[in-house]
């Protein structure tokens, strides 16, 4: 099916020149491996039956498998951006915690905190941007909403801090972080100070499907570092999305407020399936991920939030860890049964776009619900962040074929239970 949206921009061509032109093929065919080298790093995969296992020992082993992190965190400030989709803790399947479905599990975060502390981290900070606006509750309260043992996590290291990064937080001004990879949409972002005030940055994400992007992994997790309280300062025009991040980032309906870095080309495509993979890549370029940790021990399949019809609780039993976010996400995608080099209209990037939940202009031609997203991993590859080519990634731990949990098959009820 030919794409109704604009397919390849000059900027795409420029960014992809000699790197990952195959990722942007017009017909949505699978991308060929990049012609020239982009960074690669080892990725470790483990099969974990339960959150009650000794995750501290597990992470230590996996970190050893990817070359160790002690030398990187010793005496340093480590910041973990944890994936708390919805960021209230109230979004649940009945009888399940958010940590079992749409959030990273507290045992994962607790174990990581303990490992970083053991490896000599001076300060460990746990970060996420919540949606609360008027009466910003501390991040710890959000975590209590899912029954996290906040006191226990605090005691896992010498100095453990929490900060809600949806606004200024503890700082008096926002930090402007420039995109250090090849930028697609934004040259820089204004962010909470926490993303600058750290020496070692960890993206701790859940392995899930995603309504608009197909899958959400360590790169997608960085969408939550954007502060709504800043980007929402511009007045909302009539008819624009009520959600700040959607109107500024997903659809580009309004520019960021004055004083905040603006889009490179405000006339670029407004389709979210085109914008978001590029925007996420820009975010990963602005705040590079030093360590990607993917929690797929338990999760939901079929969407990123529990409110989506058809989502199912699942126990893939997976942990994936790596130093390069593109490489790590590529391996994780493979363990989920997806081709990490898949193109538009291939799983998981062929999408049903719910007409009730999206502006009409997002459905092109009008009313068409069969849409796509570009492959974020290939965007990252195109920007020079890392390779999504499995043949170039040093796999450690459990082989992909033994670790694989086919999300599509389980979602459709085709996989054996």
């Amino acid at each position, binding site marked *: 099916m030919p794409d109704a949206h604009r397919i390849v921009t000059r900027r795409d061509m420029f960014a992809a020149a000699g790197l990952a032109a195959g990722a942007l093929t017009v017909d949505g065919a699978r991308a060929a491996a990049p012609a020239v080298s982009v960074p690669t790093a080892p990725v470790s995969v483990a099969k974990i039956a339960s959150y009650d296992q000794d995750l501290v020992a597990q992470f230590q082993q996996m970190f050893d498998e990817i070359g160790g992190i002690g030398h990187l965190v010793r005496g340093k400030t480590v910041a973990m951006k944890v994936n708390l989709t919805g960021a209230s803790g*109230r*979004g649940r399947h009945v009888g399940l915690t958010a940590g079992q479905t749409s959030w990273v599990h507290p045992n994962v975060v607790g174990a990581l905190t303990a490992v970083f502390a053991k490896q000599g981290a001076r300060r460990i900070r746990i970060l996420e941007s919540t949606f609360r606006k*008027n009466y910003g509750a501390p991040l710890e309260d959000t975590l209590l909403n899912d029954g996290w043992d906040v006191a226990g996590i605090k005691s896992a290291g010498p100095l453990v801090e929490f900060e809600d990064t949806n606004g200024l937080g503890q700082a008096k001004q926002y930090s402007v972080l420039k995109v250090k990879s090849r930028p697609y949409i934004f040259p820089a972002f204004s962010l909470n100070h926490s993303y600058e005030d750290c020496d070692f940055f960890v993206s701790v994400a859940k392995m899930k499907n995603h309504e608009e992007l197909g899958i959400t992994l360590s790169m997608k997790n960085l969408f939550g570092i954007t502060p709504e309280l800043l980007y929402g300062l511009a007045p909302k025009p009539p008819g624009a999305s009520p959600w700040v991040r959607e109107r500024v980032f997903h659809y580009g309906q309004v520019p960021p407020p004055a004083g905040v870095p603006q889009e490179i080309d405000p006339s670029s495509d407004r389709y979210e399936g085109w914008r978001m993979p590029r925007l996420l890549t820009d975010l990963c370029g602005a705040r590079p991920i030093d360590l990607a940790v993917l929690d797929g021990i338990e999760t939901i399949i079929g969407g990123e939030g529990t409110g989506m019809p058809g989502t199912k609780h699942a126990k893939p039993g997976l942990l994936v860890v790596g130093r390069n976010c593109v490489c790590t996400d590529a391996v994780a995608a493979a363990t989920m049964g997806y081709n990490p080099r898949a193109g538009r209209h291939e799983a998981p990037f062929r999408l049903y776009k719910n007409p009730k939940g999206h502006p009409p202009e997002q459905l092109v031609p009008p009313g068409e619900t069969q849409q796509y997203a570009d492959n974020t991993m290939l965007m990252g590859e195109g920007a020079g962040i890392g390779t999504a080519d499995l043949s170039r990634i040093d796999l450690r731990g459990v082989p992909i074929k033994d670790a694989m949990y086919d999300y599509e098959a389980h979602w459709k009820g085709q996989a054996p239970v």
Partner: protein
Amino acid sequence: MADGRKGLLLIGLLASVASIPAQLRAGAGKPEGWVPIRWDGGPLEVSRRAKDTALAGRPAQREAIGRWYDPATLDLLRGTPLNCILVTLSAGADPELEERQHLLVREYARVARQRGIAVLGIVHPGSSPVKAAIAAAGAGLDGLVLDGDFSEESKFMAALESALREQNSEALVIPIARHASSVGMADTTPAIADPPPLAPLAVAGVRPSARDLADMGIRAGASAEPWIESNIWMVRFLRFQSGRRPIWIDQQPNPSAAGDYIRCVADAAVAGGRWMVSLDDDLRMRLYQRDAAALATWQRIASYLRFAEDHADWRGFQPYGNVGVLFDAAAQDAEFADEYLNLVARRQVPYRLIPRSSLRPAALAGFRAVLAPTLAPPTETERKILRDFAEQGGLLVTGPAWGNPPKDDPYAEVPTGKGRVAVYREDPPDPGDLARDLLELLPPEVMGLSVFNVPSTISYASTTASGKSVLIQLLNYAGTPSVRVTVRFNGIFKTARLYTPENPPAELAARATADGRTEVAIPRLEAWAALILE
């Protein structure tokens, strides 16, 4: 006035007239102390349900129900708080069958009364009021319960009352109101030292449960909570309206699940009502056969009923809330107005009710926010009272009739004096949206109570008149326990004691927070827990 409310208004009036001398209740206790269970049975019940294909296909169940008025079934009640049985009395069936049932009930009721059990006869549509009254009087029944859709219920009730008087029976007449939106009648009994007992107010409730919105085909946001069906708000509302009258909730839970049964008990009891215990056919059959698993389920139900009755003093606690919900008993769209009470409770926002007829400046003292979404249109006097409330620092949440609603946004916050007015665009505002927005509009200290990790739970806070004791009840509607529930409440309290039906009372650590609140961590919430702060 909505039809449902009109109907119940009349029903309530008639029922409240039927107050009875306490001395006539010897052995059965006063209606205030009745703990009811539906005990439908006998050949008339089997005949009445002849078209029930599920029962028709299960001869053992049919037999158990048909023989239910074997006095041995009364042994099941021994050791439980249940002291009021509702037996099948009349259904307008074949006269011979009706007569046989009446004789059976007469003998069964005699044995029950000897054991101190009150007996109420269930009257179904199609019955003759005169024959039902004669049967009730003959069996010395304590009351009659009207169950079903009577085409002209108020006429039927009047005829029944008249026939009972002719038989010199002082049996109460208790109609089961069919609609959850119904409103109870106020207790108009003068404040005297030993007031006469009042007929319970029985209302059909919902089946307590928690479900995923996605499973209901609803696409919701990532932070959407499960959908909880609960009667807590309705019991609160009816108790507020009806004064001393006992509130009974009538509904049948999912079959054969002990968890559902205990939740039904708790759901009615949290705010001071009682569930008209109703067992499914399979459980009844197995109880009749004295099946061990069924008896264990029965004992679990009894333990929850006992817990509720052991703490009957909690019914005397007053609802807590810095948020007032202004309601209009004569509102055109009663069900819509009720939904605010339901959904605000579901968002864990403690509130107290303010009748529109009582709206005075003094009535708003002690409130920090007032919800008046359906006050359309407010009178000039009401408008002034509410504006003054906002100007003095309160938050008023209201609909577009207030004036200047936003054109695009769902609501606009308008600074007013020292306070604010939140004006909604929609008329009336969507109850679900409004309830959700309250979490943004109200700072925690105005909410007073904050409860964490309770997506499938409803909380209800109440206090003694002095405010020195606070009771926070939590009811978990999910089938699995919640682990690490955290409760914060305004003020510093020295002790925190947790009461549950499963375990003896436990002292928990009460931690004072920097902002003048008390925090308590509850390690595990099975179904029903009550935390008392002092």
